[in-house]
C-alpha cells in the first residue's frame, strides 16, 4: 500500500511547481517561496519516510503522547470508560 503515496507526492509537488513556485519566483516573493518550499519539503520527507517504512524522522505522535498521564488521570478521576 505505501508505495502508492508516491503518486500523491508527485502530483502535489508538480502542481505546486507549476501553479505557485514559478509565479512566486517571477514576482521575487522569496520569503513566500522559502516558507512554502520548506512546508513542501517537510511533507515530502515525512511522505518518503512513511513510504519506505524507515521511521527515521521523529513521530509527531510523541507530542500527543506527552499528554497521556494527564489524560489517564482525568479519565480515571471522572470514571470514563476508554
Amino acid at each position: 500500500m505505501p508505495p502508492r503515496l508516491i503518486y500523491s507526492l508527485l502530483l502535489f509537488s508538480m502542481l505546486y511547481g507549476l501553479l505557485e513556485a514559478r509565479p512566486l519566483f517571477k514576482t521575487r516573493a522569496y520569503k513566500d517561496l522559502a516558507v512554502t518550499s520548506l512546508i513542501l519539503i517537510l511533507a515530502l520527507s515525512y511522505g518518503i519516510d512513511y513510504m519506505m517504512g524507515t521511521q527515521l524522522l521523529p513521530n509527531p505522535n510523541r507530542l500527543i503522547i506527552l499528554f497521556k498521564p494527564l489524560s489517564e488521570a482525568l479519565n480515571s478521576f471522572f470514571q470514563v470508560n476508554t
Partner: protein
Amino acid sequence: MPEKFLSRQQQASMIFLLLIGSSLVFLTGSAASQNAWLSTSIGSFFGLYVLYAIISIHDLFPGQRITQISTHVLGSVPGTLLNGLFLLSVFAILVTFLFDIIMMMEIIYPLVPRVVLYPLLVLPCCYCLYKGITVLGRLGELILAITMIIVLLGMLLSLPNMEISNLQPFLANWRPFIAGTLYAADWPFDEVIIFALFLPLVSDYRRNQNIYYYGYLIGALLLTLIDVTIITVLGESQANLSLFPLFETSRLLGFENFQRVELLFFVIWLFTGLYTMVIYFQGLAFVIQDVFSLKSYKALILPLGLCIVVFTLYMFPNTVEYTLLGFSYLPVYTFPVNLFYPTIILCVAKYRQKHPSQKLLSLRKAM
C-alpha cells in the same frame, strides 16, 4: 484592512455547519453515557463563551485576525508563542477531521486504500480554497437548508424507533457527566475559535451581531437533539459500542420496499464534513500566513494539503491508534488552547484599553 468577502448570514451558516460537520456521525459527550445529550447542551456554553470572546476581541480591533491582534496586544515574542500553540491545535484538529471523514468513507469504499482516499478528499478542498472565501460562504448558504431539512427528517423518521426509557437513569453519576461536558466543550463547541480568523472578512460585521449566536445556538440545539435521537434509538450501551452511532441509527430507518435510507444521510455528512475541513484548512493557511508574515495564503494551499495527507497517514496508521490519540489524549491539549487563547488576548486587550500604550494608540489611529 483586508477586503470583505463574507456576509453576516454566510458567517452564521458557517458557524452552524462547523458544529454539525465536525461532530459528523459521532455521539458528542459520549463519556456521559445516557446523559450525553445534557452534557452536549451544557458543553455548548463553553463554545458560546469562545464565540463571545472572539467577537469582543474583534470589536476592539476591527479588521484584524486574532493571530495579528495577539502580537499587537501581548508583544512580539509571547504573541508568536501563543500563535504557535494555536497553530498546532488547528493542525491537530484538521488532521482528526480528515481521519473522521476517511473512517466514514471506508464504509462505502471498503476496498479503496486510505492512501488513495486522502488525496481524493484533500484536492477538492484545495480547489475550493483556490476559488476564494466568497465561494466558501456561498457554499455554506447553499448546503445550510439542505442539511437542516435532512437532519430533521432523519429525527422525525426515527420517532417510531425511539425508546424514552433509554435516557434513564438521569444523572446517576456526576463524574462521567462532567467528563462528557468537558469533552463536548472541546469537540465540537470550542472549535468555533477558528472564526476569529474569519470575522475580519465579514462585510457588514457590526450590524446585528446576534446572528452569529443564533447560528451557533441552532447548531448546538440540533446536536443535542441528535444525541437524544441516538440514545433513545440505540440505547446507552449500543451507542457507546458503535463507532458511528448516528449512522447505525439511520440504518434502522426504512419502509417496506424502501431500504438503505442511510445513504441519503451519508451524502449530507460527507458534504458537511468536507465543508468543516475546508474551514479549518483555510484557518490554518491564515495562521501560517500571519506567523510568517507572508503576502498571500494561496501559495500555502498545496504544500499544506500535502502536509495534511502525509501527517494523517503518519500519525494515525489505524483506527485503534486514532481513537486513543484523537479522542483521549489530544483534547487535553486542544481544549485549554482553544479556551484560554482568546481569553488571554481578551483580558490583556481590555486591560490595555484602560491603560493604553503609545504603540497601541498609534495602531488604533491607523485603523
